[in-house]
């Protein structure tokens, strides 16, 4: 068991912490599409999602004075601010790192800007229209590879699934974890998507047999262990806790955010010393310490599924169960709302709602605290989002209702 600081020893009010200082007051998204099928250009999707989040918050979009995103989003805040007629741009932030690892960090960066006084109303957004641009799951059309890619591409180790499969293979072997663990994670996402009309896989349930018979992408990942690729955009509006109290929606207060990765995680050629990991072994203890909650206090978890094995390791590294308990814990019944032990990915997540690079997970966490989820967890007070396992940096966050503060 790693060092999780109990509530009695958590950071005091004078310590450096985001806890209780900033809230998410608006969430919004476009319709979600299969990849390449968005009828609109990517930047228009971004603008639509931002306006949807403002409408949800009951906020004039001209009140936005900051932007935060991640994974090299192509939609530059200065362009968005000009397009939206924003009177004054005060904060523009990009979280370094690829994949979805920056989803929670972007929320944390936005919140930090508000707490520091750099800006008053920051939107966190992500937009993807992969028909317009290169797909993630296909090899880039290059004739040569250099640097890290030279060590992997010539051996057919190219796609994200191939990049991460060996981490999961080692973890499952070390801990005797069977295929049922990954299957339960996939089934939970599809189960929840059937109640969510926004979900791309709404109306397309997944059975255990269909999972077992699905083709291998790269062992140990079958087709349904892998996220979709989608088009769309999502956005969240953050303001100070003081301001949030007078707004339309029930505020979702930030309890803690942490980002980073272990010692030499990015050592090239798969030389991370802590290899069989989702990269959260050092990050998660910081998250719990700042938030002042324990794993048992978490009502519902949204955990980024690039691949189900990444979720498996993320949940272990956030101390919901040990690796040796994974086979027993990871069952469909335990992972579904309303009454599972740990309701997981209750919108359908990256597997079955939309691969909005994970930002749909932050939105779902907020909806759970408001009682607005399509798969509500009754009385949810603390929600976790885990962003982008196995990349570096990764990030995770905890939000809570006002009575948790």
């Amino acid at each position: 068991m790693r060092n999780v600081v109990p509530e009695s020893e958590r950071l005091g009010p004078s310590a450096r912490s985001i806890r209780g200082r900033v809230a998410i007051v608006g969430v919004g998204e476009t319709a979600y599409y299969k990849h390449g099928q968005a009828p609109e250009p990517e930047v228009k999707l971004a603008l639509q999602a931002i306006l949807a989040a403002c409408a949800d918050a009951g906020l004039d979009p001209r009140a936005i004075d900051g932007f935060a995103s991640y994974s090299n989003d192509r939609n530059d805040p200065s362009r968005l601010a000009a397009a939206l007629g924003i009177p004054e741009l005060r904060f523009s932030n990009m979280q370094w790192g690829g994949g979805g690892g920056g989803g929670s960090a972007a929320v944390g960066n936005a919140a930090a800007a508000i707490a520091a006084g750099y800006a008053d109303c920051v939107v966190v957004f992500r937009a993807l229209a992969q028909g317009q641009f290169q797909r993630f799951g296909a090899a880039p059309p290059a004739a040569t590879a250099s640097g890290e890619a030279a060590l992997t591409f010539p051996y057919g180790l190219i796609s994200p699934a191939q990049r991460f499969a060996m981490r999961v293979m080692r973890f499952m072997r070390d801990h005797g974890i069977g295929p049922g663990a990954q299957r339960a994670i996939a089934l939970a996402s599809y189960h929840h998507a059937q109640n969510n009309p926004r979900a791309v896989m709404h109306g397309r349930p997944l059975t255990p047999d269909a999972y077992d018979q699905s083709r291998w992408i790269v062992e140990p990942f079958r087709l349904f262990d892998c996220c979709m690729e989608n088009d769309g955009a999502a956005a969240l509006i953050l303001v100070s806790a003081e301001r949030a109290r007078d707004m339309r929606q029930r505020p979702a207060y930030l309890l803690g955010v942490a980002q980073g990765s272990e010692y030499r995680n990015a050592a090239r050629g798969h030389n991370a010393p802590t290899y069989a990991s989702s990269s959260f072994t050092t990050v998660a203890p910081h998250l719990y310490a700042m938030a002042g909650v324990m794993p048992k206090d978490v009502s519902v978890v949204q955990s980024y599924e690039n691949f189900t094995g990444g979720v498996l390791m993320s949940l272990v590294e956030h101390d919901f169960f040990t690796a040796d308990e994974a086979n027993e814990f990871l069952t469909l019944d335990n992972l579904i709302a309303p009454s599972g032990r740990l309701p997981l990915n209750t919108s359908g997540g990256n597997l079955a709602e939309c691969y909005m690079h994970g930002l749909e997970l932050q939105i779902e966490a907020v909806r759970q605290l408001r009682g607005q989820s399509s798969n509500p967890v009754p009385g949810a007070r603390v929600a976790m989002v885990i962003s982008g396992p196995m990349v570096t940096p990764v990030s995770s966050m905890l939000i809570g209702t006002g009575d948790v503060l």
Partner: protein
Amino acid sequence: MNAPAYYLPAGLPRPVPEPDGLDAPYWEGTRAGELRIQRCRACRGWQWGPEWICHHCLAFDLEWTAVEPRGKIYSWERAHHPVHPALRGHAPYVVVLVELPHAGNVRMIGNLLGDPMQAVQIDAPVEAVFEAHDDATPPFTLVHWRATR
């Protein structure tokens, strides 16, 4: 003349040294049938992948040392979905991550030669097989692995 038999077909991205020269000695070594890894002259620590500074002692004093091309399988995967046009019709294939216990436990990536459906065991001993692509422009050599007993 028949095309050379490679584990994976030609057409995948060809490895080229980085423009700043960081990993050029590695690729030159493979052409000579050597597995060269960075080692620090100051602290004798091993380092892989390549970097300009020693992560153990922060000396900018790294040399390239040829190591015995043997190791053990640290992890593996069997790829079935062809993510690159050159791989269509050539799946499955096996990628291994090989640990070198005699060189600071650094790890190397390659393909595991032999039946692509073979049972693969973590910790199984392997030895390197240098696969020269003399017909490529510029020529290069990949380092694969083969199970030993």
